[in-house]
C-alpha cells in the first residue's frame, strides 16, 4: 500500500477517535499537537489502528513511535508483507 493511502486511512481513524472530522494529520503529528491526546486515548488509537490494518504492534514498536510518520513506517512495512 502506498504511503499516501495509509496516511488517508490513519487520518480517518484519528478523526473517528477524536470525534473531529476536520482534524489534519501528518507525518510530524504527535501528542503535543492534539490537546485531547493523552496516554489513555493513545491506547484507543493503537487498538483502532491494529483493528483496521489487521496486525498487532509489538511492545517495542509502540514504545518507540515518536510521531504519526514513524507509525506509518511500521504500518507500511507490515501491510506490504
Amino acid at each position, binding site marked *: 500500500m502506498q504511503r499516501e493511502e495509509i496516511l488517508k486511512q490513519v487520518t480517518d481513524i484519528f478523526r473517528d477517535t477524536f470525534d473531529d472530522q476536520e482534524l489534519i494529520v501528518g507525518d510530524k503529528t504527535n501528542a503535543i499537537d492534539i490537546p485531547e491526546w493523552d496516554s*489513555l486515548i493513545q491506547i484507543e488509537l493503537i487498538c483502532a489502528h491494529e483493528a483496521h490494518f489487521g496486525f498487532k504492534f509489538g511492545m517495542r514498536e509502540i*514504545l518507540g513511535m515518536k510521531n504519526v510518520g514513524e507509525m506509518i513506517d511500521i504500518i507500511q512495512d507490515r501491510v506490504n508483507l
Partner: protein
Amino acid sequence: MLHLLDYPFDSQTIMKKRRGLKRELLSFGGNFLDKKVAILGGSTTKDITEILELFLLKNNIKPAFYESEFGQYWEDAIFDNPILEEFSPDLFYIHTSNRNLQHYPSPSSSKKEIDQSLSNEFTRYEKMWDSLRKKYGCLVIQNNFELPFFRILGNLDSVDFRGRTNYILKLNSMFATYAENNADLIINDINYLSASFGLQKWSAPQDWYLYKYSLAISAIPFLSFSVANLIKAVYGKNKKALILDLDNTLWEGVIGDDGPEGIEIGEETSLGQAYREFQSYIKMHKDIGILLAINSKNDLENAVSGLTHPDGLLRPEDFQVIKANWNNKDANIREIAQELNLGADSFVFVDDNIVERDIVKKGTQGVAVPEIVTVESYITTIDKAGYFEIIELSKEDIVRNQMYKVNVERKTAQKEFFDYTEYLLSLEMIADIKTFESIYVSRIAQLTNKTNQFNLTTKRFSQSEIELIMADDLTIKISGRLRDKFGDNGVTSLVIGTIEDTIMNIELWLMSCRVLKRNMEFAMMDALVEEALEKGIKTIKGYYIKTAKNQMVKEFYGSMGFKLIGQEGENTIWQLELEAYQSLNKVIQVNV
C-alpha cells in the same frame, strides 16, 4: 447500530464506535434510571467504564461514574474520601485481578506461611467490604480472580498448596463463601469469564506492561457486559419469561407436516439429541422462576402432539400460555403480555425463523430476540446473553413470586401499531410462478406427499403422475417459488387444475407452512386466473376435502372470493366466475 451491543458482539467494533453508540443510545430520550456507580480499580479502568456505560444505557440505566485514581481501590474504600462521599454512590464495582495479589505462594513456602498468606490476602478484602458497608451501605460488585497465565508447577499448580493456581482457587472459594453469607456483595466471576473468553487471550501480558490493563483490551466488552448484566439485575431489569417457537426450535421438523413420528427429538438421532439438550436447558429455567410460553404457527392439537412426544422433555403443562394459531407472532406476544400481566420487555423470544424474529422485533417494544442460528449453538447464544442474571436464589421466592409478581407494568392491549402490508412490502418478496418444470418434478411430488395443513384436497402424486399431468394439455399446473430479502424459500406452493370445457376444477392447492401469511396464495391465485383466462375458462371450482390436519383451509376458497355452492358432509365445493376477477396480490413481485 445498537445491534452491535447484542451478544455475540464484536469487541473491536464496539470499542471503535463507542462515541457514536453513546450518542445513539442517549438520543432515545426515553426514561432512563439514573444511577451512580463508583468504580474502584486495581488497574486501568478507563475503557472498562466507557464500555460499561454503553451496556448500561442499553438497559435504560444512565450511569454517573466515580473512578478511583489509578490503583487506589483499597485506599478509597478504607480511608475517608470526601469526593467519594459527596458522589454518594448507589453501588460499587471493585475491579481487581490476580495482578493485585500480594502474597503469592512459592514452591519453597511452608504450609503455615501459605495459610497465613491466604488469610492476609482475604482479610484485606474483607476489611475493604466492611468499610464500604459502614460508610456507604450499598451494594458491592467484586471481581474474583482469574487463573495465572503460566504454571511453574504445571498440572500440580492447582493441586499442590504451593501452586499459584491452587492459591487462587482457594481464594475464590473464600470469596464465594463470603458472598453466599452477605447479600450486599455480588461476585463478578472473571474466573469463568476469562475461561470462557480464553485464558491465554484474556491474560495478554503486553496490555498490562503497556497500559496497566489487567486483561486484554479485546476482552473489555465481555467484562463490561458481565458487570452491566449484574447491575441491570440489581435494578430489576432481568427478563422474566421465555417465549418459544416450536418447529425447528424445540424439535427438528415441522409437526403439522411430519407428525410426532416425523419430528426429531430424543436420543435416537444427532439432531434429536441436540434439541433434547436444548429442551432440557429451557426447562431448567423454570427452576429459577422464569416463565415459559409458546408462540407457534400451528394448530393447537399439533402443538400439543409435539409437546407430548415421549422422547421430549418439555410438556404442555410447563408453559404458562400456549399460543398455537395462525396469527402474527407479534400480536400473540402482546396477548401473552396481557395474560401474564407482564410488560413485553420482560420477554425473550426464541425462534429459528428470521422472518418471525423480524416481525416480533418490529411489532413489539423491548422484547429480546436472540439471533439463534443452528440448534448446536442455541444454548450458548441464549446463555451468554445473560437475560436472567439471577443475583439471589431463594426457594420461597421462585415459584410463587414469579407466578404472581405484581411488580410489573400493566400494558393495555396495543393495536397493531405497525402496518402489516408495509411490513410485507419491506420483505422485498419475489415469486417465480410458472408451469411445472422438469427440474422441479421431484420437489413437486415431495410437496404433495408431505404437505398436510395448507392442503385443500390432500391428493398425493408420484413423480410419474406429475409427469403425466405436465404432458396433459387439459390441465393447468403452476408452482410458486418465493424469495425475500432474507433468502430463498424454494418451491413452496402448487396448484393443479383440470379443464372441462369452460370450467376448471382445482384438484390440488397446497402451500408450505413456511410461507404462510405472506399473501403468496394471492399471487398464486392471480397467476392461476391469468392462465385460466388465456385458455378460455370462465369458471373455477374449488374443493375442500376435510382431513384431520387441514382445518386451517376450511374457509380458504371463501377468502379468495369463491361462493359456496355445495356441501357433502364436511367437504365443501366452491365456485368463482372469472369475469369480475380483480387481482389480489399487492406485495409480491411476480415473475411468470
